[in-house]
């Protein structure tokens, strides 16, 4: 019996480590990623999106829990990009909360670009939610003044509770940026109060036992910030939130073959 437990603990640890890390190699050819990344940019540009919410799928579709379509969410902002050769080009810069690969309980705010963003994608599909122009303006003001950085909580959990400030994941950070922009505030308490009042998170359909075991083997997963059932912010719930209050201009899933599906 002791041997069985020891072997299984090794399996759990190995699985958790592998699961906490993004794939080290892309599953697509680089040309495919480049083409898709440009497709996403051109799609948003065609809709005059100066700022939009972007989502990607970083796990095999069959591995996604019920109700979750995208595994990473961020804000893309149309920008003048200064390059290392001294030139300036126009495109989208993406403002992310990224979990540290070597310290999964911690995160950083990182700016990357569409090819970087989709490099580890498991499916070439993008979630695109373009807020109303007034929301875009306020988001751009927030980010250009770098006020969004004060919203960052580096204590990471993949199922962070968006109703408090104990932990934060990429989608909660995106939501908090939206709230800060719309309410023109950086007061965390006010942002969380409005999350509680108006935002409907996604229930996480994974058994408490599995979540509890997971939290034992990785710092990037905890349920300590939840009371009762676990709910977290997702790309889709952010899209619904904006739509509910008529603040969404356009919301689709964009596939590599050009097909779109309304969210």
């Amino acid at each position: 019996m002791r041997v069985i437990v020891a072997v299984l603990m090794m399996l759990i640890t190995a699985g958790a480590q592998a699961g906490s890390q993004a794939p080290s190699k892309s599953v697509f050819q680089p040309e495919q990623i480049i083409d898709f990344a440009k497709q996403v940019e051109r799609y948003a540009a065609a809709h005059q999106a100066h700022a939009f919410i972007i989502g990607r799928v970083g796990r095999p579709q069959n591995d996604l829990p019920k109700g979750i379509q995208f595994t990473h969410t961020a804000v893309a902002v149309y920008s003048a990009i200064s390059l290392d050769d001294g030139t300036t080009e126009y495109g989208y810069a993406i403002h992310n909360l990224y979990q540290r690969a070597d310290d999964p309980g911690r995160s950083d705010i990182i700016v990357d670009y569409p090819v970087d963003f989709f490099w580890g994608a498991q499916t070439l599909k993008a979630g695109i939610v373009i807020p109303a122009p007034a929301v875009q303006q306020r988001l751009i003001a927030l980010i250009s003044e770098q006020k969004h950085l004060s919203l960052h909580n580096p204590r990471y959990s993949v199922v962070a509770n968006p109703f408090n400030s104990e932990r934060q994941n990429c989608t909660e950070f995106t939501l908090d940026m939206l709230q800060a922009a719309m309410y023109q505030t950086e007061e965390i308490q006010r942002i969380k109060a409005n999350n509680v009042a108006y935002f409907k998170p996604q229930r996480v359909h994974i058994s408490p036992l599995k979540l509890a075991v997971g939290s034992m083997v990785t710092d990037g997963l905890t349920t300590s910030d939840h009371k009762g059932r676990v709910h977290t912010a997702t790309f889709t719930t952010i899209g619904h939130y904006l739509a509910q209050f008529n603040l969404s201009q356009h919301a689709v899933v964009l596939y590599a073959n050009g097909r779109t599906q309304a969210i």
Partner: protein
Amino acid sequence: MNKLVIALLTSIVVSQGAMAADSVDHSGQASKHSVLASVEGAASTVSVASAVVAAPVIITGMSVVAVADSTHQSVKALHAKHQQNTRPLTITTRVITRDPPPSEVVVEQTVKH
């Protein structure tokens, strides 16, 4: 009993992938930049560049008025006016990425010597 324990724990291991975070920065992967460089070398239509800084383009109403200044940037302020903009925004054809991590840059320099 042992079979039940094995089955339960195996299902837990499998489910770790479902809740594994995807919000890990991919940009530091050492292979990505070398792969992109090889794509650039093979295809004359692909031009790859590293970004230094990105300054949001500010909009007021329907007009693009300025590029935002940021405290650490070296971008000149540009002024462009588009009256009642219904045209797509301009997107570069170049492939822009973040810089590779320092460990990759130092390794490359060592190899050259």
